[in-house]
């Protein structure tokens, strides 16, 4: 489903964030991406939804080569991928319902479909009763659940999460993980960059470690593997 071949990424300021990455990810996998800060985790993640473009190499997602993707086609790529961010990235002027609905409005879905789909996913993340509230009226965990709801509302085959629990307390983090587990159980591929060793060591999945822009470890049911 996802294939990276010899991917290099050098930023204009000279930092090399990817130094020849090769990886293959199958449909339905749950993958943790771990590694120290500044080692290239975020770049690895960002290249998958084309927020960053590789300097060289190929990234193939569902048969599309992102290295050759035209800028005008990027929105259509992003519609096939749900993305969850550490800082939630909700639209502050839209309420919970509208934030989730936005992902369906961009694909020009019929209003009746939008209504049922949005309420379905809000039910899944347990926020049906807060549909009319605005992001600022919600706790961090609730905002992250809205963000997750938005990422899965158009049933993408792939959900990418960049430290989704990074801003949340431990208890809320476990709730969020349960939601991801449920999404994964439905057959959606999940790629999650994280610093949370407890989660990685408890809910066992494939673990990729990135250091110095290289994949240094790739275990089918691995541990977090770093001290502290």
């Amino acid at each position, binding site marked *: 489903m996802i294939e990276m071949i010899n991917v290099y990424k050098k930023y204009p300021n000279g930092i090399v964030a990817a130094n020849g990455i090769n990886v293959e990810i199958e449909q339905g996998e749950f993958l943790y991406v771990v590694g120290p800060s500044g080692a290239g985790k975020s770049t690895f993640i960002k290249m998958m939804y084309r927020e960053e473009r590789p300097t060289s190499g190929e990234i193939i997602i569902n048969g599309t080569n992102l290295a050759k993707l035209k800028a005008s086609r990027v929105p*259509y790529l*992003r519609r096939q991928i749900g993305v969850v*961010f550490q800082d939630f*990235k909700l639209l502050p*002027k839209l309420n919970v319902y509208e934030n989730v609905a936005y992902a369906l409005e961009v694909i020009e879905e019929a209003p009746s479909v939008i209504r049922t789909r949005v309420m379905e996913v809000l039910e899944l993340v347990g926020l049906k009763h807060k549909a009319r509230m605005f992001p600022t009226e919600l706790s961090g965990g609730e905002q992250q659940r809205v963000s997750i709801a938005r990422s899965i509302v158009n049933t993408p085959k792939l959900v990418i999460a960049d430290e989704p629990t990074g801003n949340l307390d431990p208890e809320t983090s476990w709730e969020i993980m349960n939601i991801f587990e449920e999404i994964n159980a439905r057959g959606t591929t999940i790629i999650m960059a994280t610093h949370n060793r407890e989660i990685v060591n408890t809910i066992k999945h494939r673990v990729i470690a990135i250091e110095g822009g290289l994949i240094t470890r790739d275990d089918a049911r691995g541990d977090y593997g770093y001290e502290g």
Partner: protein
Amino acid sequence: MKARTLGRHFRESFKSIGRNGWMTFASVSAVTVTLLLVGVFVVIMMNLSKVADDLEKDVEIKVMVELTADEAARATLEEEITNISGVAEILYSPKEEELNDLVMDFGEDLRLFEQENPLHNVFYAKAVNPQETEAVALAIDELDNTFEVKYGKGKIEKLFSFLNTSRNVGLVLIIALLFTAMFLISNTIRITIVARRRDIEIMKLVGATNWFIRIPFVLEGIWLGILGAIIPITLVTFLYYKIYHMLSPKLEQGKLFELLEFSPFIYQVNALILLMAVFIGIWGSFMSVRKFLKV
């Protein structure tokens, strides 16, 4: 794009106006102030230009016909004057009429001259372009059977040069004011959109195309422009109505010049204000969004 998406964009743009309360207020105020300035200024300049035109139109060439000329010679002269290119209209005033005018101006005593009228038959000619009066007058002077051709030599040159200068100054001022208005308003709109830079970034990350993001912003720009045009249009219309009805009766007595008729002039000005408002709204939001769409 599907029709219902367009409907969605309309709804979204209205909603955004309400939810961005203070930003809406700031942009609308900026539009209001500048359009009011532009509106008032346009009304003043257009009227000054009308006054200038009126003054110019009053410039005429008085052609006194030779006393010896008979009816046939007079008719020939009339035809010859009409044939000069650049002559707009020609009016014949026989010496009896000329005398009548004098009697009106200076009193009944002059009726004595009705027995032996010493005046000339006169043609009054006007140039198509008043600024060419001198050339036309000289051409008429060349013709046979003209006794004297008068056109206010010296005075009209000064009048024309004064009117031309004031027209140019007015034009420059209007253009300068328009640029200031554009700058001020687009700047305010830019600030409101910079405030939503993050929103645009998020929209792109969720898979919105550029047009999907742009259209609601542009529509919002249009509504802001229209909202900002309400007060200037109302005020300019009201003030001009008052001034027009106060000044017109007095000016009519003088007959030297008139203000532009309330209708259709004020509707044209209003249409101009509205058009500018809409244009500024579209342009301002379009340019500002463009900067942030490259995520």
